[in-house]
Structures are given as C-alpha cells and as structure tokens.
C-alpha cells in the first residue's frame, strides 16, 4: 500500500505540474489536498483551456458534478472530474454582478444539465451553452428569481404558495 500511496502522490504532483505548465497564469492555486484529491483555482477565461488539456492529455471523458456556491461577495463554480484515480476539482470564482462562466458543454456533453441547473437556481449563466433554460423549478416560477442565492427571501408567511 505504501508504494501505491507514493505512486499516487507522485502522480498528483505530476498533474499539478502539467496543468500549471499548460495554463500558466490562469491557475491561481493548485493544491493536492490529500490522496485522491487535487484542487485547482482557475480563472474563468482559462476554464475551457484547462478542460481541453485534461481531455487531450489525461483522457478525461466525463464530468462528475458541477457545484455552484454563493460565497457572499462572489459566486463560485466547482467542476469535479475523476481522472486516473484522482478527483480533480476546478474552482472558478465569478463576480457577483456579472455571474457568467464559459460553458464546457461542447467539450463535455455531460455538463449540459448541470449548467442548466446552475442557471435555474443561482442565476449563473453558462456562455455558449446550447439551450440554457429552466430545469428544476416549476413552469410558473417567476423569471429572474433565483432561490439558492443567499439574498433570496421566501415570500411572507413562511409558506411559498
């Protein structure tokens, strides 16, 4: 087992080095949090380049999940991938006034519904998405009201009816 752990650590360090080398200034931070877990902080403009690099060199095929987060002063979108036994997360920070992130649906089709859900619940627009529309909320939900934002309050009375 120790040998495996060392090999994995080396692989993770290699991954960090390769992606840093390919993207350069777009990656603000790259940390191997623990075994099987690497997190990168990527600028929004370099997101597609990073995903393309991972597809070409690491054999990336699927996205595991896309998480949206309202961090108070900014929005964050985390893309989780699983390559070579390592969960790689790309964290993108977006300004609160203009929450737009480049869409990775053309590169990885599995991100289609995740990006629609991001738009539906948080209002984060995935630019370049082929067909960004409501996914989760009911048809009669008012437009422009995003319930998972921290500044959304339920209507008076406590019950949404």
């Amino acid at each position: 087992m120790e040998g495996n752990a060392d090999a994995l650590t080396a692989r993770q360090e290699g991954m960090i080095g390769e992606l840093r080398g390919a993207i350069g200034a777009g990656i603000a931070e790259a940390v191997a949090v623990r075994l099987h877990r690497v997190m990168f902080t990527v600028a929004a403009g370099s997101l597609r380049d990073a995903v393309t690099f991972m597809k070409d060199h690491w054999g990336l095929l699927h996205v595991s999940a896309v998480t949206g987060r309202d961090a108070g002063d900014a929005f964050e979108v985390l893309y989780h991938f699983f390559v070579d036994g390592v969960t790689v997360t790309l964290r993108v920070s977006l300004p609160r006034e203009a929450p737009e992130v480049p869409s990775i649906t053309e590169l990885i089709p599995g991100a289609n519904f995740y990006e629609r859900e991001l738009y539906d619940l948080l209002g984060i627009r995935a630019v370049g998405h082929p067909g960004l529309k409501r996914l989760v909320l009911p048809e009669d939900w008012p437009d422009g009201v995003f319930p998972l934002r921290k500044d959304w309050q339920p209507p008076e009375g406590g019950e949404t009816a």
Partner: protein
Amino acid sequence: MFSRLVRWARVKSPWFVHFNSGACNACDIEVLAALTPRFDVERFGLLLRGSPRHGDVLVCTGPVTRQVKDRLIRIYEQMPDPKFVVAVGSCACSGGTFRGCYNVLGGVDAVIPVTAYIPGCPARPDAIIDGVVKLLGKIQTSKAG
C-alpha cells in the same frame, strides 16, 4: 335502507391509488412493503389500482411541491365519490423537513382534504397498517349515501 350493506361493502374492499407528490421514495417503499406477505395489509381488502377511476382511497406520500400540486388535484378530482385520502409520512402530514422550502407548499392537506395521517420518517409498515385500520373505522362510522 341498504346503508348497512353499502357501508359493509366499502369497509371490506377499499381499493387504493398510490401517489407520490414529491417524496424521497422512502415512504413509497414502506407502502410497498406493507403490501407484501410479511405485513400483508391486503388482508383488509386493500387492492392497489393503477387508475384513479378505480380508487376509493388516495394514499399520498411526500410534501406537495409546486410542480406536482396541479397533478395531485387532478388525480384527486378524477376519483369517484366517496373518496378518502391518507397522508403517509411526516412530509405528507406537514411538510416534514422540507416545510418552508422554496418549492414546497406543505403537507397534503394544503391541497386536498385528508382523512387519515400516518406520521413517521419513513412510516413503518406497522404504522401504515394502523393508519389503514383507523381509516376503515372512520369509513365504518361515515354516512353511506
């Protein structure tokens, strides 16, 4: 004149329709388990039907979400009289853990009138059988007509 006969017939053969109005499925699994030979709620004459046109009782699980509200009302209106509603699980009784969420209207009684409440998360099949027996007792004392 025949009210005793009619009431006997209704108590001995309550056919039910199962509807999941936004539940996590745990209560649905328990309803299904109650139908299996181990708990055997069918000994009371209960029979699961596929169409609301054949149902006397609507067994409803889950908090009512905004999306399902219209469909639940339609299914309830399509059932013939006399009809009864059983709310299974704490979500169906009051909204459960989801009460006050952005998409949840509350328990089933926010939308349609409920006859029997079966709390639990999920409600055990034993509790479901107890609730069914209480419902049958209510039908027994109701006015036939």
